[in-house]
């Protein structure tokens, strides 16, 4: 009987104690908690680094990256060298309605053209608007954080 009474009263104590403590809620539109710097919010594109190699589009498990490009002649880097041909982006779309946020494209990119940004406020009224083109993806570059320092005992980054 004593245990029962203790159980009944103990529960009331827990709720009362919680009531007297400040709430944990964050009033979202007025105040916001920043996600972790590593959070996979949205993918940013650094257009000048892209060589249209299609690696990201190919390794995407959801087939949600669409790339088109064209080639152009550029003056040689060194005097007397051969003119270079570079591939330029015409189209780079990511369909966030399909994207699973796995990050494989960011990882496979050999030229550091894709980055994760923790930004998350890009919901839309129409599902078609979730297709971000290269201008929009380029805008996210401003929100990409610097890489964090690592915990003790980690190997130094090779780059």
């Amino acid at each position, binding site marked *: 009987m004593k245990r029962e009474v203790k159980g*009944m009263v103990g*529960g*009331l104590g*827990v*709720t*009362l104690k*919680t*009531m007297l*403590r400040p*709430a*944990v*809620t964050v*009033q979202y539109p007025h105040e916001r908690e920043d996600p972790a710097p590593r959070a996979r919010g949205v993918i940013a594109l650094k257009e000048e680094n892209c060589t249209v190699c299609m690696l990201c589009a190919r390794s995407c498990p959801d087939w949600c990256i669409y790339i088109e490009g064209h080639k152009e002649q550029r003056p040689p880097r060194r005097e007397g060298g051969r003119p270079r041909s570079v591939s330029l982006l015409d189209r780079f779309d990511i369909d966030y309605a399909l994207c699973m946020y796995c990050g494989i494209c960011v990882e496979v990119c050999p030229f550091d053209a894709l980055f994760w940004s923790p930004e998350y406020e890009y919901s839309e009224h129409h599902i078609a608007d979730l297709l971000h083109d290269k201008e929009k993806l380029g805008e996210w570059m401003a929100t990409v954080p610097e890489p964090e320092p690592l915990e003790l005992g980690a190997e130094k980054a090779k780059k």
Partner: protein
Amino acid sequence: MTDLLALDIGWGTTLGIKTLVVLGLVPMGALILGYTFLLKMMSHMQSRLGPMDPGGFHGWYQLVGDGIKFLQKEDIMPERADRRVFALAPAIVVLSTFLVFVVIPAGPRIKVADLDVGVFYALAVSSLSVIGVLMAGWASANKYALLGGLRAAAQLIAYELPLVLAVVGVVVQAGTMNLNEIVVFQRDAEIFGWGGIGFPLILTQFIGFALFMVATQAELTQPPFDMPVAESELVAGYMVEYTGFRFLFFFIGEFGTAFAFSGLAATLFLGGWAVPGVEGTAADVLGPIVLFAKVMFVAFLMFWARFTYPRLREDQLQALAWKWLIPIALVNILATGVLKVAF
């Protein structure tokens, strides 16, 4: 109040005013309890804030807005429902709430009806709501609603008895069934010759108060006795098919009844509107405020348990009522009677 204004008001006008007051009080009480406890206290007990934006100050406007929204909603009736019974059910539930309010006094002269059998009347009309609930459960043509309705009927019948028996001790001690006279008794009686706070009957009727609160919780179908609505089992029980203003009626009925029962408990056990030493017009002004404070306190206890405890099973609830509450209540009456004769 009539002498205060020095006006001669006819009985018809008085009746009109009284009706309006009751009609306004019930939704008002439901709103106040709903906002204070359901929206705010529960939120804070769960480490959240609850609505903050509507109305500016801590979301006070939220429930009013909800009410308006309910009124605008489409009136949906299930195809196979018993239409007239379905429509009538919420009205009966709310009606029983209105009728309880009639007898609760808020001051020596602030009362709608001064019945000599006030206690008896209040408990009788409060159980009218079970008819409405049963009608709602049956007429909805929904299995969940039917289960909810039947559970409610079984439960309300089982808990009517301890509720009445819990009050008998008070009636025996006060020697009257008139609610106003019970309050006056509590004001005038003294604790061993000291009348500082009068004599709230909770001091001697503590067991009665506890039983009353438990039975009230069951009457109001609140956790730990909310099997008829049982969110996680029956979804919302007898209310599952209701929407719009009919649902609003149930909501007002639920919280209005909570307000009424808190008022009853405050009147019967905590001394009601009485403030010792204050009489006449001053008591009429102070009475409602004091009563309101006590109502809020009782409601706090009620909702505190509601937000803390899990729910019992229907058979366990019946076992609790018949094996524990009723025998304890009977012993309590016996003891009260013996002591009353002895002193």
